[in-house]
């Protein structure tokens, strides 16, 4: 490949609030620039994770190189990086943006500026990126582009009068977006002759190629055979292949030059030697200073993850290691539970993140998992004046050593149609929310502002919200410090033995209610056994609720003659198989799914 003229390269991301049409626009751009025919197009080309397509959300940033013949008669290389929209995945957005020179900001013409529109803009401004606003969904009858343009100018403070007004769905005016990218976003300004300096903005593990790192070349160049060095870890490797991103595939090329976005493989088998945010340089001519890299993100939600089959512990460890390569915000450390054996305490950015990680572990790594109740990071102030951050309820010190405890709170914005405002407000009050205010967006839509303890929204708040608003409410939140609270540890005892995996921290006044519900739920989940099984909830060793699983009275087949024997044996085998999926706690067998199901407290 001949040298690429940097002035003909544009590196950009598309950012938007969730559902404003970011991935659809990316699809349309790929289709228009002729990378794929419309027949080959599969909706949401860049969302190639099975989970992403299913949920219709973007979880992982994805890059794609496009050739565009602009109206000025020149051919441009556009490197487009799709980014997630949900607040939980903000860190992915900031990683992608660091590799770009500009960002296309997509705003829904019917919804206007929303929480993540702003959030993404701030991230882009942090990186000094040029922002190209685009008004999407003008084909919808309720579209009001002018109002949205005014909103962008008022709230965000960027020029938007000439923003392309498009429909990514129908393709209308999408060409204007490409022109705006070419004319507004600056070309990269790297020095091709300087020592190599490249930012790792993502990495994945491939069982054939080893670790594949996605890079933006800031200065210099890299080709097959180059000896490269990871500046943070010090690892030195020889490059096996470089290339750029086709839609959903890797396309090898000779050389990656300053200004380009692409990938590098180097037979890196050791997952820990590459780190997203690190700088790649030449081993023999290192650049002087590494790039700033990324801020480490702090997990907000923790839970224990255990392999259903304890023999799979090592597999789970490998899977977590590989997943972390691709998702630096996931943290984990080994822990042991008396009930569940060996596993990991994992930290997540939010509940969606937790769910996504759990699902990816189960699907991509084929693991059966048992997860414990998600919890937040509590601050325990001890009587000796020290403070500990508590991520696992089992580590709570004896009450006599605790002076007071604090819990994290969030500022929540709940968007809801006005008819449901009453029931949503009631829900927030039940969850210890403090009302801050309410804004009307339109006549029928309002935004409720609440201050809520994080631990009240990590269980089933989202489900409750949806069920009380017939699916219409949406929730956004950001951490807003800690507040002192009256918190206690609720223990669950099965047959008089504490099941550590079921313990959790709860607001003292809710303990009785939660304990009672947990016991009721567990009673449904634990199959009857040879003896009565008491299920108790306790706070500080004081029993506050109790249920009993009555002993099994009858489990016998009335008939078994010559023609039935095979079938009856199968029934018995199935019953026996079911028991293998149970955890032995003392002399009681508890189905694995019970650990999950008890957390799903009914809304009613």
């Amino acid at each position, binding site marked *: 490949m001949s040298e690429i003229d940097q002035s003909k390269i544009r590196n950009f991301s598309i950012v938007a609030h969730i559902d404003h049409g970011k991935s659809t626009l990316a699809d349309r751009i790929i289709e228009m620039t002729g990378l794929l025919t419309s027949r080959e197009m599969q909706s949401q080309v860049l969302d190639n994770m099975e989970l992403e397509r299913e949920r219709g959300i973007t979880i992982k940033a994805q890059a794609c190189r496009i050739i565009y013949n602009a109206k000025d008669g020149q051919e441009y290389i556009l490197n487009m990086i799709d980014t997630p929209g949900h607040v939980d995945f903000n860190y992915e957005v900031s990683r992608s943006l660091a590799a770009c020179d500009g960002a296309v900001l997509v705003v829904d013409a019917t919804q206007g500026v929303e929480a993540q529109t702003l959030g993404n803009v701030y991230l882009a401004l942090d990186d000094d990126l040029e922002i190209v606003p685009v008004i999407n969904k003008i084909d919808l009858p309720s579209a009001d582009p002018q109002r949205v343009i005014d909103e962008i100018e008022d709230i965000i403070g960027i020029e938007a009068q000439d923003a392309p007004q498009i429909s990514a769905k129908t393709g209308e005016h999408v060409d204007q977006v490409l022109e705006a990218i070419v004319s507004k976003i600056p070309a990269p300004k790297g020095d091709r002759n300087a020592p190599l300096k490249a930012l790792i903005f993502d990495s994945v593990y491939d069982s054939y190629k080893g670790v594949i790192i996605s890079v933006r070349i800031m200065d210099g160049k890299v080709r097959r055979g180059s000896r490269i060095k990871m500046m943070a870890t010090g690892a030195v490797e020889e490059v096996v292949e470089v290339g750029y991103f086709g839609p959903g595939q890797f396309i090898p090329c000779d050389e990656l030059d300053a200004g380009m976005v692409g990938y590098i493989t180097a037979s890196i088998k050791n997952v820990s030697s590459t780190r997203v945010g690190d700088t790649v340089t030449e081993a023999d001519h290192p650049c002087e200073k590494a790039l700033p890299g990324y801020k480490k993100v702090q997990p907000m939600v923790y839970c224990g993850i255990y392999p259903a089959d304890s023999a799979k512990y090592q597999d789970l460890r490998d899977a977590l290691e590989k997943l972390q390569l691709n998702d630096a915000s996931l943290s984990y450390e080994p822990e042991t539970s008396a009930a569940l054996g060996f596993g990991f305490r994992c930290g997540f950015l939010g509940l969606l993140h937790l769910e996504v990680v759990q699902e990816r572990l189960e699907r991509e790594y084929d693991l059966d998992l048992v997860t414990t109740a998600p919890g937040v990071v509590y601050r325990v102030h001890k009587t000796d004046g020290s403070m500990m951050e508590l991520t696992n309820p089992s580590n709570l010190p004896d009450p006599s050593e605790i002076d007071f405890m604090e819990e994290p709170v969030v500022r929540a914005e709940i968007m809801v149609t006005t008819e449901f405002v009453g029931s949503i407000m009631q829900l927030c009050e039940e969850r210890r929310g403090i009302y801050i205010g309410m804004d009307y967006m339109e006549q029928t839509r309002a935004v409720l502002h609440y201050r809520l303890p994080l631990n009240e929204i990590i269980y089933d708040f989202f489900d409750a919200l949806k069920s009380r608003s017939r699916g219409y409410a949406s929730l956004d939140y950001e951490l807003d410090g800690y507040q002192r609270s009256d918190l206690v540890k609720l223990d669950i005892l099965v047959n008089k033995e504490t099941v550590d995996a079921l313990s959790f921290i709860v607001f003292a006044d809710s303990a009785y209610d939660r304990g009672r519900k947990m016991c009721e739920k567990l009673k449904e989940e634990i199959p009857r056994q040879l003896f009565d099984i008491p299920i108790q909830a306790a706070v500080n060793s004081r029993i506050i609720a109790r249920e009993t699983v009555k002993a099994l009275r*009858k*489990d016998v087949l*009335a008939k078994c*003659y010559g*023609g039935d*024997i095979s079938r009856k044996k199968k029934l*018995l085998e199935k019953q026996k198989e079911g028991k293998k999926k149970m955890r032995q706690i003392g002399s009681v067998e508890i189905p694995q799914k019970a650990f999950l199901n008890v957390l799903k407290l009914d809304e009613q």
Partner: protein
Amino acid sequence: MPEQFGVSGTPYMEKKQEIELYLHLPFCVKKCAYCDFLSFPSGAETQTAYVEALKREIRAFFAEIEETEGAEYCLRSVFIGGGTPSLLPAEQIAGILTEIRSDLPGAVSMGEPCEITIEANPGTLDLQKLSLYRNSGINRISIGCQSANDRELKVLGRIHSFADFQKSFRLAREAGFENINVDLMAGLPGQTRQSWEKTLRTVAERGPEHISAYSLILEEGTPLYHRYAEKDAFPPLPDEETEREMYHRTEEILREYGFRRYEISNYAKKGYESVHNTGYWDGTFYKGFGLGAASLLPERGIPSGERAEGEGKIRLRVRNTEDLNRYLNNPSSCSHVEERLTVKDQMAEFMILGFRMIRGVSLWEFRERFDRDLEDVYGSVLQKQQSEGLLEKSGGRLRLTERGLDLANLVMEEYL
């Protein structure tokens, strides 16, 4: 009588192999609400064609035995089940039995005595039919009574009343049947403990030799199953506690009338235990003829020189097609191997089926048959179940306790 089939002084290996025959007649007047057996109403023509196919299958099987080297059997029982076999003209039944008797190969000797049972339902019997049964060698009849309460019969979808049963029973005696079983069902919709006890006493007073008392099972796919899948179905089923009380009372009440429980759901006067059914529980070979019928037979066809260790002892559970046309076209080659039972599988069945019998399993018989010590094979499970009070050991036998009988599945699954 059961003694001669149970523990005997003769070592297993020297004893001539016993075999039982089952004949399936899948026809009925109308399907009952709880029935998941392979049965259906049909016309006389189909029935005639079916009886012919049965005979062809019998002939083919006997010919196969004749050709098999070293196969030698003693015919211990014949069971004509259904469906409602008594629906067919008695001549057809007699014809089938004649076929068996006249074609019996030299390698199969007739048991002395040989129990020959027919299943019958009230409303399908008359004196002439019953006499013909007797004359054709049938010496035991099993009548489906189910309940002495007509309301309960109706819920089950039975086509007869209790009075119909009483009449059939009287006629059977009149025709000379000295071994009569009555089928009864407990745990029925709307049934109370009182009505069940009344059914038991009313029937026991008629003096049958044998009573089978089954707890109702709601089998998937039956109308009754669907009806009771709904909450608040009426009339309600007895709760588990009541159902178990009914079960325990059954044993107490029937004991008053001279019956002994010898299997989970079977009660007999001394010497009248069902030979045929006992065969299913003690691992006797059986050959089933007819639609969907199952057989348990030794695996043949591997020359003894080429057999791997233990392979000569493999048993097969074979099942005929459940497709009527396929069966009618080719009754003798429409079967498939449902299970290939290794010695280990056979040990499991020995335990599972043996535990259905109140007398339990014999340590000695286990050793005779498998050349291994039962307590070596299942030691830890046996220990655990004895300590849980599910199993007890005495007189060289292991049997389920009263509680073990209630929870038999829990016990049995551990041997699989």
